[in-house]
């Protein structure tokens, strides 16, 4: 084994992966290489965060997608034979990881929530969720390198250390790519990042009309929190942007308080709030599964309950 590779997409994700990689580097005695995909000027910063080597990927023309770098990464990996490659479980990270893994003929643990080095068996052990979050799957690798994608915010950002430095190496240019990017539409982040939110009010299918989202917004406002939604509301009805969709296929959140309004509580959604400190729910169906996974719940029609709730909260918060 020759090193741990980190292919972070940006400063934030690279910082988190350096925490994961740092722990494993300590356990295995390996060095850490960061592959710079964007932000080529950040080499020094990454040394401070724990990188020993920077591998600089070639710059691409505007209309070439980053996936064009895959042959470069695979080629370099075949030469320098790292023992572990970590990528973020983002859209691009997932595709790149799967294709690099296929190119190297190796295994990949998608969306790893725990990564460990088993010194006795000399293998990396990882954990991930399966069956919509109902089960934890534990895997080991039979091939090298071991590879994993890690969801954003699974690890805290690595702390900066003074006086660290390392080597920088440029990787060769990619072969021509048949894929062309004709247009990029940046999603306007009209909303705050929910992963930072302390209080989240989540609208579910129990909200009957788009106008009625107002009820959820007012509650969020009274609580000083943010609004979010379940998958059908963003994906089927397009009432709210995807950034606000919580769940296995959306984002995972860790608020102090989550209140679901008319959220039924399918396991795929609950998986996204499993780390919430307090889960509360308002649903008129007392059999809704969310009551099983909530700390407290109100069985009742949200249209009647929420206005009262807002009043009580305002009183309690002295508004």
């Amino acid at each position: 084994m020759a090193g741990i590779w980190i292919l972070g997409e940006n400063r934030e994700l690279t910082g988190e992966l350096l925490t994961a990689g740092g722990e494993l580097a300590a356990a295995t005695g390996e060095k850490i290489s960061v592959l710079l995909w964007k932000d080529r000027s950040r080499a020094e910063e990454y040394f401070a965060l724990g990188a020993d080597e920077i591998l600089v990927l070639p710059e691409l023309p505007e209309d070439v997608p980053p996936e064009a770098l895959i042959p470069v990464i695979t080629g370099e990996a075949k030469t320098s034979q790292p023992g572990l490659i970590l990528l973020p479980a983002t859209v691009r990270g997932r595709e790149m990881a799967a294709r690099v893994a296929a190119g190297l003929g190796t295994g990949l643990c998608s969306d790893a929530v725990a990564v460990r080095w088993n010194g006795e068996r000399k293998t990396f052990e990882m954990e991930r969720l399966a069956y919509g979050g109902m089960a934890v799957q534990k895997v080991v690798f039979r091939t090298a390198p071991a590879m994993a994608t890690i969801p954003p915010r699974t690890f805290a950002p690595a702390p900066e250390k003074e006086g660290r430095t390392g080597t920088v190496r440029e990787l060769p240019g990619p072969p021509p790519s048949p894929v062309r990017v004709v247009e990029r539409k940046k999603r306007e982040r009209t909303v705050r990042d929910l992963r930072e939110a302390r209080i989240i009010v989540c609208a579910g299918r129990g909200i009957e009309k788009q106008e009625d989202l107002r009820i959820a917004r007012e509650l969020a406002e009274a609580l000083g929190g943010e609004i979010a939604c379940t998958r059908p509301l963003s994906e089927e009805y397009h009432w709210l942007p995807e950034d606000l969709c919580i769940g296995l296929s959306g984002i995972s959140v860790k608020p102090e308080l989550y209140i679901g309004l008319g959220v039924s509580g399918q396991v795929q959604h609950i998986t996204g709030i499993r780390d919430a400190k307090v889960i509360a729910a308002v649903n008129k169906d007392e059999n809704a599964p969310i009551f099983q996974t909530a700390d407290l719940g109100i069985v009742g029609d949200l249209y009647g309950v929420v206005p009262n709730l807002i009043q009580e909260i305002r009183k309690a918060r002295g508004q």
Partner: protein
Amino acid sequence: MDFKLTEEQELIRKNMREFTEKHVDPIAVEIDETSRHPEELFKKLAEGGWMGIPVPVEYGGSGSDYLTHIVAVDELARSCASTGFTVSIHVGIACMLVLLFGTEDQKKKFLAPMARGEKLGAFVLTEPGAGTDVMAATTTAVKDGNDYVLNGTKTFTSNGPTGDTYFVFAWTDKAAGRKGMSAFIVPRGTPGMEVGTHFKKMGLRSSQTSEMVFRNCRIPQENLLGKEGAGLLMAMTGFDHGRTGIAAQSTGILQAALDESIRYSKERVQFGQPISRQQAIAWMIADMATDLQAARFLTYHAAWMKDQGKPFSKEASMAKLFTSEAAMRHTIKAVQIHGGYGYVKGAKVERLMRDAKITEIYEGTSEAQRMVISGNVLR
């Protein structure tokens, strides 16, 4: 012996399940409360080919067998008994009557639009003074040139207000007794046929029921179904199919009662544990599950007999008798398991209990089924 449905039947059940989750469950409470016939839902059922499963493709159907239709009704009724029933009587009686007894022209003209779900069929037999005692009917059809002229009043006609194609039974020769009744196909809008009083019902509320009034209603000869005088025989054949359908509807109701009881009893906590751990509740559910199994076997067996081309009057009656009584018995238990929550409007078990009652009454009461069964076994 093979106790398995075919893979196609299993997939069809799964597809119907998905259909009900998407299109029926969301409106089931509303159409019950408002007694509304959901036209838009029937359009979707028609698109999916659910309105003519056992009718051959050349007559607009899906070209499957009767058991497959029964499986679909079972699954549909699990979500909404009213809708399950409407499909059941449309296919099981209206479509099957033309398919079995109609002329080639009648199949093209009346069966195909029904099997495609463009027209809804209705079975017009019961009269105010003639329920189980069919022979007490008074509606007459008098031959006049090339036409028949119908006079009389029918009642409790399912799909009466919403139907397009009516199957009307009337005396052509009262003196001939059992061989004196004939059946006629009467399209909606025929002069002299009017929809009478709409009935407000205890349950099965989105299924529309009314009187049908015939005043000098002139029907051309070509709309006579089968031979003159064969009406009663055809009505009985219609009942064999229809009763199997009611058995499927009752099975669906029973399945829903079990689904709701299991779910609720596992979640409802009293005395520090889910009530499903109380033997009193657990045993109710055990009996419910056992009767459901028996109900489904009896029902599917009757449909299987039909598909084998064997006589199945006795099997249809047994299936209907057992499943409808089991549905009633267990929906009462399901409400009991739910306690006060089961007595509230909007609770599914409340609707199930109201919907179950009619299954012991229409298309032959439980008593009538016992007459058929005892007549068969004591022969």
